[in-house]
């Protein structure tokens, strides 16, 4: 088992990673344990990590702190517990400005980019959960401000997918 102690912003995370199999890890972050499936692991060569770089290897990770987390190995902190987001919001997110993943899975396609105008219900992404491709429809009409996820990325329930522009 390896212990990574990392500081992200002003918070410290202690991440314990235990390798169960080549692509399976048991990860403990802040007392909560997660099973992590590594779906890709590639060397990006000499690339320098900048705040905006997209994560090559996707891991089952929870929402915020995403960009900062991108550079890290197998584990990402489950910063704000997904449970908090789960109870209140209806399926499909529909929170004020952001739309979040309705269930855990892997993003297969992202169909919108910042600046796009969407109708309510229009396909914005495809989420693979339990090997089924689920179409994620826009939770409201509006303009996309930001997209937080990439194709191939694992998401947990409540992970923010995208943000709408406030009108």
């Amino acid at each position, binding site marked *: 088992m390896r212990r990574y102690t990392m500081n992200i912003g002003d918070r410290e995370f202690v991440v314990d990673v235990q390798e169960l199999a080549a692509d399976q890890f048991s990860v403990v972050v802040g007392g909560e344990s997660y099973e992590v499936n590594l779906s890709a692991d590639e060397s990006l060569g000499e690339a320098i990590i900048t705040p905006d770089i997209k994560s090559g290897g996707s891991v089952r990770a929870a929402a915020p702190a995403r960009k900062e987390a991108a550079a890290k190995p197998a584990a990402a902190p489950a910063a704000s517990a997904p449970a908090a987001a789960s109870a209140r919001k209806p*399926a499909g997110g529909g929170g004020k400005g952001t739309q979040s993943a*309705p269930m855990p899975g892997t993003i297969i396609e992202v169909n919108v980019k910042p600046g796009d105008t969407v109708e309510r219900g229009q396909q914005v992404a495809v989420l693979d959960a339990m090997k089924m491709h689920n179409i994620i429809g826009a939770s409201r009409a509006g303009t996309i401000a930001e997209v937080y996820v990439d194709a191939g990325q694992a998401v947990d329930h409540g992970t923010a997918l995208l943000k709408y522009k406030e009108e």
Partner: protein
Amino acid sequence: MIDQETIGLLLKGVNNVTWQSLVMIGVSFVLLYLAIVKDYEPLLLLPIGAGCLLANLPLSPLIGEEGMLVALYHMGVGNEMFPLLIFIGIGALTDFGPLLENPRLVLLGAAGQFGIFLTLILALLLGFTPNEAASIGIIGAIDGPTSIYVSGILAPHMLGPITVAAYSYMSLVPIILPPVIHLMTTKEERLIRMPYSSRKISRRTRILFPIIVTVLVGTLVPFATPLIGMLMLGNLMKESGAVERLTKASAAEIANTVTLFLGLAIGSTMVGADFLKPSTLFILVLGLLAFALDGCAGVFFAKILNWLSGGKINPIIGAAGISAFPMAARVVQRVAQEEDFENFLLMHAMGANAAGQVASVVAGGVVLALMGAGG
């Protein structure tokens, strides 16, 4: 030089063509068509169709005393080994997580097996023997290996039609299940949203689950021990992560090889005179009925749960309480999303579906126990 006898020997094949074998060759073409063109469970229907064709060619040496198809039959169908080996693979592919997150879904899996017993009674009334009736009812579980296992013990002479029915209906789940759901539910019910409840299931729970289920079910329903034991063995290998190579082999190479052998052997039992009986037609119709009734029972029970919970359970997830993992759950999700694109029932449906998988195995064991089979 060429006398009557020589000509007779040379034309032996042609002379031994019977109308039954011609019809069965036609049936094999239908199965091959369904597998190749219609993509209905091709992994099984193609080998079954091929086995059926090869067994019905005149004087086919393949079903002679030492014929390959006969050898395959004795190797793993007569003694029930093939369906059990397939079950290890199914266990290695099944994720019981959604069920463990929401254990009360077990009830839906249990409800999804009622059709089996209703059909059993109906088949008895139609004049089938108890053993035959039980084998027909089990088609309703829409669980191929369980159907093969149960009918192999109770009614080996009906193995061909029962297997074909079980696998055909399995591929027809997306066509048969939605009308059943629509018939049983109102639009308001189909619109009930069920947010995903994220509860982390510890690795220890996931590992203990298959062991506990095996001990529990094996003790309560000894006839289900072979099926549940192999299903849970596969799951234990998957969840423990300790034997990744065995897990992969069980889910891929072994399951694929056995599927080919099983299909060929089953196909070879579909020989003219035995298959072309009115009872075959009854089996197909009753099997379909068992399937529809299972779906209805699951939905009906989910309605009761919904009522008890004060409107928090969408009754359509009950339709996933039949087996046919994971297709039934996907169909339920699709029906839900047709009504409301923001409603994601998949995880709940998967839970009910995984419960249905276990319950159909238990139902198979119960049916065997009721018939006093085995020994």
